[in-house]
């Protein structure tokens, strides 16, 4: 079963607006990461937040993590048309190796 689920599945906003995506997961984690995928290509890492952190910033990105609710959110401020992509959360769980499991993704469309 999927470890993470993103909400909403799809989001359409106007350029300049903020976009918020949420991720819920099922098991305890070591860290949570957000990735971006442009149109059927490989994923690119955006930001990582460790399980003992509550908030992280990187440029126009802000990530929060609530381990008690097993949820995270990604906020993209002042969105641009170039932000149009799919966004995935991924959770890292240390077993015998590092198990990196992805969610179902949010498709973001930013209208010029």
């Amino acid at each position, binding site marked *: 079963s*999927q470890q993470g689920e993103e909400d909403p599945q799809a989001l359409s906003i106007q350029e300049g607006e903020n976009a918020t995506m949420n991720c819920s997961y099922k098991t305890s984690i070591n860290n949570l990461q957000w990735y971006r995928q442009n149109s*059927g290509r490989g*994923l690119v890492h955006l930001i990582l937040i*460790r399980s003992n952190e509550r908030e992280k910033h990187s440029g126009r990105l802000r990530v929060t993590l609530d381990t008690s609710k097993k949820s995270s959110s990604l906020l993209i401020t002042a969105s641009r048309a170039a932000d149009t992509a799919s966004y*995935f959360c991924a959770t890292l769980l240390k077993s015998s*190796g*590092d*198990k*990196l499991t*992805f969610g179902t993704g949010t498709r973001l469309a930013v209208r010029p």
Partner: protein
Amino acid sequence: DVKVTQSSRYLVKRTGEKVFLECVQDMDHENMFWYRQDPGLGLRLIYFSYDVKMKEKGDIPEGYSVSREKKERFSLILESASTNQTSMYLCASYSGGQRTEAFFGQGTRLTVV
């Protein structure tokens, strides 16, 4: 720059064929992963490997096997391809630890006819 290279961008195979998908990384990463991506289902983990010859099943290993004989190469094997294995396959590598990120190949779009 880290590079993760998948051997084929597009592949068409017949039902029942044995299919090999190859992935090579050049950063000496310990961990490598194979995912499949289907519309509405996101990325689902098939298998991962944390060292040479070491592997673990992911969430959907049925119908697949893997091989990691060298650190830089991780192969996904479809023992007898079926039409429900038509999908985009993504390989990733990851050095491990709390602060690192995964790097992805460009994907192999496999069609089984």
